[in-house]
């Protein structure tokens, strides 16, 4: 007994000492604390970004250049910040001076008054020309006239295919329609001796890698909302066509077998990615994959093209979204934060360097034409898709992308076969989305 009591007392005493020393200092926002080191009286700016590992290193290189040019600021970069942290930071707890998010769909959430600062007056004051940003990027960085973000490189989704596997199956060029895609997929699939999947031609499961309903929407020309702002998933026939195509291909594999294969498919941002290892013959992915393959599997023989289309979709178009960057209302050092944001989003050199580094599409017209951009055959396909007039993004709503979660829940049941009434199911989803929109106090997209 004595041993335990002594232990408990010691435990508590040490804890108290540590707490008084450490907790008090680390609990509050330390954004303004000078970091000491090279610049004595510099303001420390904290910037939160979603990138990690190799991509984060590239971003830090760009920021380091800014640091050198501006001796009065010291920029601290924090990576791997996901949207959960960003949304939470809008209201309480720690926040940064500048925040960047991968989820452009959430701009409806970020552009609420009190969340991210209004960049309108700052843009006017510094006479920044908004037309240098392509229309689509301007769309997903503001909500209902309130501009709270600027685009920082864009993401474009296209088609990747393994040339070696194509040759082995006797296929030449990439498929142009979804029907062709399904045929090719069946030809390229290989099974193991026990019947389980070894190489999958194309895995159209929603929720796997970058397969989201949003990414397929431009390929079939389907509309999310009708003229009056009500959800139109059940009314627009293009959605049904897409979902039936998808289900047909999943049933060919067997949903259970496909899921089993997926769980062994390798993490999306690691070197064991199924496509990079040759276990997935074709896939839809963003333009950043070019850089990943170059870094992790340079021996891979692959090609890129626009995604195949169907119905009202136009070949050559694709889904766009991008990284957005803004200034949280609760942040400090507004002036310096704005200077950094302006540099990152409009300086051609910064944009070109960063684009070369992580292979994302430059987000201003001048940067897109910059001589500093390193040419790459596979990457060039994506810049073309980016400028295609029919390429588009998800409509911005006050819910962010939350209304897509409802759609996703239905899709999960649809693709596994649990929900077989497509028309009825979509109608139900429309009803639920409309109810959610009403509850959020806003109807439909602007």
């Amino acid at each position, binding site marked *: 007994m004595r041993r335990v009591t002594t232990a408990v007392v010691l435990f508590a005493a040490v804890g108290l000492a540590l707490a008084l020393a450490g907790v008090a200092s680390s609990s509050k926002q330390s954004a303004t604390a000078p970091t000491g080191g090279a610049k004595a009286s510099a303001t420390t700016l904290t910037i939160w970004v*979603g990138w990690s590992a190799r991509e984060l290193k590239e971003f830090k290189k760009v920021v380091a250049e800014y640091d050198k040019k501006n001796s009065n600021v010291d920029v601290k970069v924090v990576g791997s910040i*996901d*949207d*959960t942290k960003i*949304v*939470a930071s*809008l*209201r*309480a707890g720690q926040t940064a001076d500048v925040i960047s998010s*991968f*989820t452009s*769909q959430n701009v409806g959430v970020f552009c*609420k*008054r*009190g*969340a991210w600062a209004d960049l309108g007056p700052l843009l006017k004051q510094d006479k920044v020309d908004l037309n240098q940003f392509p229309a689509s990027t301007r769309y997903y960085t503001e909500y209902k006239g309130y501009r709270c973000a600027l685009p920082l490189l864009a993401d474009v989704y296209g088609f990747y295919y393994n040339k070696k596997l194509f040759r082995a199956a006797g296929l030449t060029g990439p498929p142009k329609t979804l029907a062709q895609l399904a045929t090719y997929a069946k030809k390229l699939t290989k099974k193991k001796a*026990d019947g389980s999947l070894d190489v999958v031609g194309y895995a159209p499961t929603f*929720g*796997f*890698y*970058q397969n*989201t*309903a*949003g990414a397929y929407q431009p390929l079939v020309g389907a509309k999310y909302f009708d003229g009056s702002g009500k959800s139109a998933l059940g009314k627009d026939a293009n959605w049904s066509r897409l979902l039936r195509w998808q289900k047909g291909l999943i049933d060919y594999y067997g949903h*259970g077998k496909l*899921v*089993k*294969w*997926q*769980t*062994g*498919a*390798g*993490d*999306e*941002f690691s070197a064991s*990615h*199924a496509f990079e290892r040759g276990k997935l013959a074709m896939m839809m992915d963003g333009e950043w994959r070019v850089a990943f393959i170059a870094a992790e599997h340079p021996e891979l023989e692959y090609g890129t093209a626009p995604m195949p289309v169907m119905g009202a979709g136009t070949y050559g178009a694709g889904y766009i979204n991008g990284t957005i960057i803004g200034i949280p209302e609760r942040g400090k050092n507004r002036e310096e934060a704005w200077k950094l944001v302006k540099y990152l989003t409009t300086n051609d050199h910064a944009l070109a360097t960063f684009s070369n580094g992580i292979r994302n599409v430059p987000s201003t017209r001048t940067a897109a034409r910059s001589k500093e951009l390193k040419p790459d055959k596979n990457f060039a396909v994506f810049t073309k898709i980016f400028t295609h007039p029919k390429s588009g993004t998800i409509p911005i709503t006050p*819910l962010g*992308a*939350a209304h*897509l*979660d*409802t*759609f*996703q*829940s239905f899709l*999960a*049941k649809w693709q*596994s076969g*649990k929900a077989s009434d497509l028309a009825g199911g979509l109608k*139900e989803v429309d009803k*639920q989305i409309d*109810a959610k929109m009403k*509850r959020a*106090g806003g109807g439909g997209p602007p």
Partner: protein
Amino acid sequence: MWRRRGTVLLFLSPWIVGFSVFFGYPLVMSAYLSFTSYDLLSSPRWIGLGNYRYLFREDPEIWTAVRNTLWLVAVLVPLQVLFAFGVATMLARAKQGAGFFRTVFYLPALVPPVAATLGFVYLLNPATGPVNTILDKLGIDGPLWFNDPTWSKPSLTLLGLWGIGNIMVIFLAAILDVPRHLTESAQLDGAGPLRRLRWVTLPTVSPVILFSVVIGVIAAMQYFTQAYVAAAVAAGQASQAGSVSTLELGYPEGSTMFYPILLYYNGFRFFQMGYASAMAMLMLGVAFALTLLILVNSRRWVHYQGAAR
């Protein structure tokens, strides 16, 4: 008298403050917020019964959440109690190595739930996990465990059964506490082990069974960590996406959407705090009703030795 009352108040003061600040106040505030729309950025906006209307008529996820949580109460809790009791009975009869066995069965209950869940999700990975690999060698096509909507809750149950150490030890102590003269006289009367269990051990141990059932139900109503972590990891495994922009609640197909998780999402991801408060009020009512139900029913099968309640 005054001195006495002063002393009592002094001694009770921490709890009085604690109760008001961390129980009374939040309860009242929760009730108030449940009639508002509140996202923490601006002040609460009164909407009357709006949240409750959405809760009972329009929310597509709520009844799945309620059903899943009730599944835990109806399946997980009884299984846990039965399993713990079974293991305790075996342990009570063991002669050699009782201490060793007791440690083996108790230790998993101490493991942090996050760690245990991560371990289980990895072990039950349909394609590469050890369990399916072994099943494969035995010629059985292993299920998709955490990635299959019919197997996800049973997988969580397996995890729950692994951690019954606490209840098991309580049962063990209670079984060992059964007065010897009762078991011995029953034995002398010719009762075999099964009859002794039914007529002597069980009735004597019934207060402890009641206790574990109540604790189990309370825990089932608050069930959060294991489901949250398991769904996140399993979904991450199947989609392998680093930052998927659409999340699938209750992966797979809503089967792990339990009530506390939905409440968390509504309140702290979507920041619909008024609606989350309405959900909390409903939860309070159900928790109360369930506990009352069990306690009232307990009079029928619980025997207390000595002093009556």
